């Protein structure tokens, strides 16, 4: 007999994160069986990061200890982000902070149209004469962040693609953590000195 929380485990393995608002049923299962789910992943050397305030749960895999004779294989793959992609991530993280700390915002979620996303990030890139290629490039960056689960398309603008709406997921804050921000800054500083 599979455990009653088997689906939660599978969901966590299959998705970037489990959200309380997007998948209520599994979220509730997770709340009920949190200890058991944690124990299951602890066996694999993984840690369940359950953030109730932001309403998401995800898996992390800490580096194995140096003296571990048989370190487990990596299950979580590493995602390489280009400079542009990472920069949009940073800009979105800033936006999330703004959104969270504003006492006005009605919705706890942050929504943005593709146009607004582009506006936020385009000023960091030199405008190219080929405006169309430039826009395509920005769209590709947005696309890539969507693949990684930082953005979720909530409304597809078929007639007006620029009005396609995304939700900026709080997961982004966990992924682009303070350490990652420092790392980004460090690398960028090195780059700036080298050119």
């Amino acid at each position, binding site marked *: 007999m599979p455990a009653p929380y088997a689906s939660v485990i599978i969901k*966590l*393995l*299959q*998705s*970037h994160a489990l959200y309380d*608002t997007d998948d209520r049923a599994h979220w509730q299962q997770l709340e009920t069986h949190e200890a058991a789910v944690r124990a299951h992943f602890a066996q694999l050397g993984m840690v369940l990061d359950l953030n109730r*305030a*932001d309403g998401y749960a995800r*898996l992390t*895999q800490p580096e194995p200890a140096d003296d571990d004779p048989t370190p487990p294989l*990596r*299950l*979580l*793959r*590493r*995602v*390489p*982000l*280009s*400079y*542009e992609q*990472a*920069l949009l*991530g*940073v*800009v979105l*993280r800033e936006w999330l*902070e703004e959104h*969270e*700390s504003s*006492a*006005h915002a*009605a*919705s*706890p*979620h942050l*929504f943005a149209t593709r146009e607004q996303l582009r506006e936020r990030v385009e000023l*960091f*890139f*030199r405008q190219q004469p080929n405006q169309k290629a430039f826009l395509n490039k920005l769209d590709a960056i947005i696309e890539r962040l969507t*693949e*990684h*689960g930082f953005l979720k398309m*909530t*409304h597809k603008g078929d007639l007006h693609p620029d009005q396609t*709406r995304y939700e900026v997921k709080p997961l982004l804050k966990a*992924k*682009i953590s*303070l350490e*990652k*921000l*420092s*790392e*980004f*800054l460090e*690398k*960028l500083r090195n*780059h*700036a000195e080298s*050119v």
Partner: protein
Amino acid sequence: MSYPLYRGLFSADRAPAAVRVLRSHEAALVLCFLQENFKAGSYAPVRANDWLAGQLADFLETWDVRGDDDAGDLPTLGLSWAERAARLLRDWVRKGYLTLYTDEQGADQHTLTPELESVLDWVQSLLHKPTFVGTESRFLDILQKLRELVQNSADDWQARLAELEKQRSALDAQIRELKLTKTVRTYEDYEVAERYQTVSGVARGLLRDFREVEGNFRDITQRIYQQQAAAGHTKGGLLGLALDALDELRLTAQGRSFEAFYRHLNDPRQRAELDALVRQVFELLTDRGLETGDEFLRKIRPYLLGEGRKVNDSFYALARKLEKILSEKNLRDRRKSLALIHDIRALAFAVMDNPPTDPAFLELEGRADYLTTESTVALKERESAIVPRVLAVARPEEPELAALVSPRVVDKARLAANISALLRDQSQITLRQVVAAHALRHGVPELMAYGSIAANSPKHLINRQQKDIFDLGDGRWCEFPEVIFCR
């Protein structure tokens, strides 16, 4: 400069929205349109932006409403009806006639602001004089409420006992009389109509006030938030604030009254009673042939439930948010991250002309490396297929062509092992480096096998813009896209 309350009415900007709308030259349009779409017919508290804009465009076109140019209106010349409608809605939100918020699905929604609710109700009460003014039932209501108030707040148990005794003897007297006469006195038609009207009015008022309640919660939240943002609090004080925030919100008179109301509404017994009563009332009205011209009360429960839930949700969302922003760790983290982002911004501008080109500038932890049924994954694998053009590099007349289809098997497992051996020391490695370390044994097929390993896993990158030249031996060379294997 601060104006005494009523003097403020002279100022165009300071007057409350309720007065502003009545004074504006578009009062007729605003009142008529909003009344028709939010209040008349089926009561709808929330309207989607798309829907409302469509209605407004139709309305403008039907009545041929044009911008009043001499009133300094927005220049609307040459705009389509739809554009005008969208512009008007934005304008009304700005002026405080409508609210605009994003719902859970990310769609824009409008509700009336509390001010506009009041104005519309007031105008309606002016235009629709009730056929008669019921005074009796309302006087009895007042009496009843006062009685409840006195009885339920006196703490003298003897007085309470005496009161209950009095009620019992009154009941006994009624029972005796009923047994003797065997006839009941029922409400006259006028009495029924009057009471129906009162209840309907109170229910409408209650729904309208929800908007006010929600707004008040928001104000309280904002006040608490400002308090903490304003002064430099000690660590302990800040923590205390965060803990109190939820309680403070809940313990306000309004919070407690609302919580009690919501409990009543969600009590299955009381819900069933409400439903049964509403049904009976309508049966009674039909039996007596009384025209109400107002079906509002029939749907009172779903309305109350829907609106109540919205207020409740927003209450908890606000409380959660307050807790979150006030938590000390959060404050510290936010400050730190904003400082870092600030520095990143400055540097990003500095390197604008020479941005880093490293395809793996920053590495994050992704999801589990499982194959899922999600379509994105399937799509990606197909997209990054190997460029077949490589085959054309070999000259067709070369007899070595056979090597391409040679029965020798390229052992992918060995190649994968080569890659992971090198990845143990480095986080990423190019195909060039792999080939340098482990020479090609099978020429082009082996290159293609490497390529297919890269194409089959999204963590590896194939950069088609950049071509590498590989030595196949015997003076033959092969051009192949740059491949970067990542850990």
